[in-house]
């Protein structure tokens, strides 16, 4: 496993932030050139006049997905580990309602949060207003979370790190290929819909169609390659779900009632405050009482609703927020550990790289 470059997120964090700006520039430039800085073009998607949003979005998803699957098939990356670091956990109900609501906001404002930034950058004042609305909306949400019933909704349908290949129990390569093929069919459909809606100009722009189908052909070949390549072992082996120290410390602050922390180590110098000490064999029988079960230490017999604290107690004691909780002192400035040479990687040592 080569990717991602962990040094960019830990040891040389400043360099990572430079990479963040560069990646952002690429993102913003492509969005602008696709026409995503202009509300009428984005809104046309929802009146079937112009399916650009759909085409760009799914071409991008298929490209990145196949690239990642191929990279993991070649042993360059661990698909599950990298996916868990990228994707948030699944919370079924807030994601379903959040999606519906975001769709409404999209057609009312003419932008999504990302494209409102591109619109602002191109001088569109409506984009600036939309982005201002997003900032206010995210802030108001933090206020709403103070209401216990609302917070309950916010955490409902928690499924942890959950992927489509876990849902149907097949190789990730197969899911990726199915999505790629479905996208191709949808692209053909999108071209038909556009021609049907625009009516009169039905026989216009054949070169456009040629490019479209050349692209589709390329993607189809990539999809076949993705299936043909053998799955490397770490890519398809499901691993125990984990929770990072920073996620856990955040949960301890925001919703202590929603977690139950169990320490399976009989003797320990340090423990997570509020954790119960239980034998490793006993945790298999713990009932699912709706709370997230977090296990510190040996988790061989963990039940389905449990998560292991990633990096163990060591990661917990290094987490700034956890430290602040234990001592009551404000967290230290972040630059100190990054600049000093004594900073240790919170992740386990490279044993997984050679596997």
């Amino acid at each position, binding site marked *: 496993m080569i990717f*991602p*470059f962990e040094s960019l997120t830990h040891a040389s964090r400043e360099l990572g932030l430079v990479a*963040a*700006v560069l*990646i*952002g520039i*690429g*993102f*913003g430039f*492509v969005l*602008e050139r*696709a*026409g995503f*800085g202009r*509300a009428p*073009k984005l809104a046309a998607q929802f009146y079937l006049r112009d399916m*650009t949003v759909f085409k*760009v*979005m799914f*071409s991008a998803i298929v490209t*990145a997905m196949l*690239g990642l699957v191929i990279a993991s098939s070649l042993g360059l990356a661990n698909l599950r580990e990298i996916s868990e670091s*990228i994707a*948030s956990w699944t*919370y079924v109900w807030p*994601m379903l*309602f*959040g*999606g*519906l609501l*975001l*769709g409404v*906001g*999209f*057609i*009312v*404002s003419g932008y999504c*949060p*990302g494209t409102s*930034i591109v619109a602002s950058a*191109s*001088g569109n004042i*409506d984009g600036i207003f*939309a982005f201002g*609305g*997003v*900032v*206010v*909306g*995210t*802030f108001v*949400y933090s*206020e709403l979370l103070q209401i216990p019933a609302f917070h309950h909704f916010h955490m409902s349908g928690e499924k942890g790190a*959950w*992927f489509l290949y876990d849902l149907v129990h097949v190789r990730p390569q197969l899911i990726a290929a199915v999505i790629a093929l479905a996208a191709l069919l949808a692209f053909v459909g999108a071209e038909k819909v556009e021609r049907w809606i625009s009516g009169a100009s039905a026989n216009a722009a054949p070169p456009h169609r040629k*490019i479209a189908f050349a*692209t589709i052909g390329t993607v189809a070949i990539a999809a076949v390659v993705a299936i043909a390549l053998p799955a490397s072992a770490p890519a398809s082996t499901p691993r125990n779900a984990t929770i990072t120290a920073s996620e856990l410390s955040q949960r301890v*602050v925001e919703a202590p009632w929603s977690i139950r922390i169990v320490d399976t180590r009989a003797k320990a110098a340090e423990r997570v405050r509020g954790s119960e000490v239980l034998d490793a064999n006993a945790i298999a029988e713990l009932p699912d009482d709706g709370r997230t079960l977090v296990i510190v230490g040996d988790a061989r017999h963990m039940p389905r609703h449990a998560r292991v604290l990633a990096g163990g107690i060591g990661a917990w004691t290094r987490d700034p*927020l956890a430290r*602040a909780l234990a001592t009551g002192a404000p967290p230290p400035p972040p630059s100190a550990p990054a600049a000093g040479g004594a900073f240790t990687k919170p992740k386990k040592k490279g044993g997984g790289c050679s596997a």
Partner: protein
Amino acid sequence: MESEKFWNPYLAGIALGVVLLTSFLVMGKGLGASGAANRLGVAVAEVVAPDHVKSNANLATTKGGQASVLDDWLVFEIFGVFIGGAVGAYTAGRFGARVLRGSRVSVPARLALAFSGGLVMGLAARAARGCTSGQALSGGAVMSVGAWIFMLSVFGGGYAAAWFVRRQWS
């Protein structure tokens, strides 16, 4: 004059996918937007009402352990998006102050709709743990179940509401 020439959508999509894949492989992170908006809001609140931020655990923990709420990958990435968007618009001859709207809606009405739609999206993105960039695009590409639920809901919500605001876009 404003140019209406855009890249072929499939080629633009592949270019976007390459940027996304680079972000995955190099940083182990996806692209995002609403997370940065959230941090920006907290940063403003820290200046205007610092005591309020301290008293609301949800606002206070946005910081994590960092000294500044703006010291985050997403904030830097969004700064890049702004530069990239400006460069893209300028080099295509699309840069300039204007309000984009349909012919049947006034400028104040358009701006009010843009702001209120944005506000709704801010709420929605927090509930969904991300917006179309962070959740649908990045999460969708790594085949997260929640991301696909969200993505399909976005299209569902958009098509359902489109009829009610059709005058704005005609």
